[in-house]
């Protein structure tokens, strides 16, 4: 049970708050103190659009403790339109229909429950891009 971690990362988990490097202008997620692209100090807050496409995916049948509720589920690497790759679950999708290159958007969902004395942790997942929000 890591309550402080949940509190500290809420802007990243609830709104994909990253950074943009003031030196090389690349988008960074998750935020860092040093830009991974040019090694200069990383820059001001920059909230990402949450749109992107599936770079890779896997449907997991054996899952770690704490994630049994939704097994099997599909985890993806999502290539955000601004550049960064993000690891996250896909939701609201039939796993048979997932393809590399599929357009997706970020939504907020429950990531896991820790039981009666623990937290309910929320964060980003990605769903197929809805027509009306396209």
């Amino acid at each position, binding site marked *: 049970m890591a309550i402080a971690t949940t509190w500290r990362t809420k802007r990243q988990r609830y709104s994909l708050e990253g950074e943009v490097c003031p030196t090389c202008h690349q988008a960074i997620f998750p935020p860092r103190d040093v830009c*991974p692209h040019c090694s200069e100090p990383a820059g001001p807050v920059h909230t990402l659009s949450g749109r992107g496409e599936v770079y890779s995916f896997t449907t997991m*049948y*054996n899952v770690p*403790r704490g994630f049994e509720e939704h097994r099997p589920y599909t985890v993806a*690497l999502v290539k955000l339109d601004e550049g960064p790759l993000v*690891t996250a679950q896909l939701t609201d999708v039939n796993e048979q229909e997932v393809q*590399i290159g599929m357009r997706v958007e970020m939504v907020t969902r429950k*990531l896991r429950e820790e039981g009666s004395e623990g937290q309910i942790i929320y964060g980003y997942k990605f769903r197929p891009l809805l027509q009306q929000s396209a």
Partner: protein
Amino acid sequence: MRSVSIVGIGQSPVGELWDRSLRHIAYDAIAAAMQDAGIETADALFLGNMLSGALLDQEHLATLVADFCGLRGIEAAKVEAACASGAAALRVGIMAVASGLHDVVIVAGVEKMTDTVGKDTTAGLATAADAEYEAIHGVSFVGLNALLMQRYMYEFDVPMDAFAGFSINAHRNGVNNPNAMFRRAINEETYRKAPMIATPINMMDSSPVCDGAAALILVPTERARQYTTGHHRGPVQILASASANDTLAIHDRKDPLFLEAAYVSSQKAYLQAGVTPDDIDLFELHDAFTIMAAMSLEATGFARRGEGWRMARDEEIGIQGRLPISTMGGLKSRGHPVGATGVYQVLEVVQQLTGEAGANQVPGARVGMAQNIGGSGATIVTHILGV
């Protein structure tokens, strides 16, 4: 800097060792290595281990093991670098002997993964990834490798059964290793029928959860011959030891399909040893998953980009092949007790170079390489040994 040689080896069987605790299997390996080298004590024990804290509620592990082995008053420390803990511990041992700080060092790796139930072990293994940005999304270690394999198959247009040859080779070699977890051959049908763990990784693409311990005795090369006993042809010299890292998370890599740390650490190692890939007689690579075997072959210079999987055929990677790999079963068949694996790999290179590999002996082996990978390519340690 002094040259360093290995003068003793010891190992426990690999498997579900429910009747033995971590301290017992560590003792089995260390006692065997000490007897092999004819020593009764040492200056230090460096112990590779990943999961004792997460799975067994036990840290302060090296002192626990040294105590249990009757090694009091010596230096003892655990070295942790996820699945590369074993090779990372070996590097610490090499640095201690090469620098002149110590003359006789025990390097061991030990892991106990089957005392806990599957999903707890799965959660423990996921601690090798970024807890805040990977593991919180429910991705397991198999899952991370599956993300790489799916993209690899897409980018390089690789068929579903392309990786089967790695597992078939590993199992064929494991049959003749008395310490291997799986001593039975498999074929393409076994591979095709294997259940999925995380698509596209099936049970036969993946190394098993298991227990095991292995140990090596290091001394300065100039004094090595006084330790080698009757059944060894002689000491095995460490020609190169190199480590390199990459981003911890796959999502932070510019090119997730290239093992940059394997490239860097192997290039450093080739330079130190004064060899090229053509000089390597056998390669104990980190086949925790078949995709890792393919990507390792590419990053270390044995295959072109996107073509490592093409080497998974008998004539290329078998004992008689161009580059024998996983010669005693590899991580797939010997088993992958994570923090011990790097030590097992080097121990098996020693067996090959001293002519003690039995039915799996690579003819005329003089130079062997071992590469141990921590995380999904984040820490990669390469050793080259020679006789």
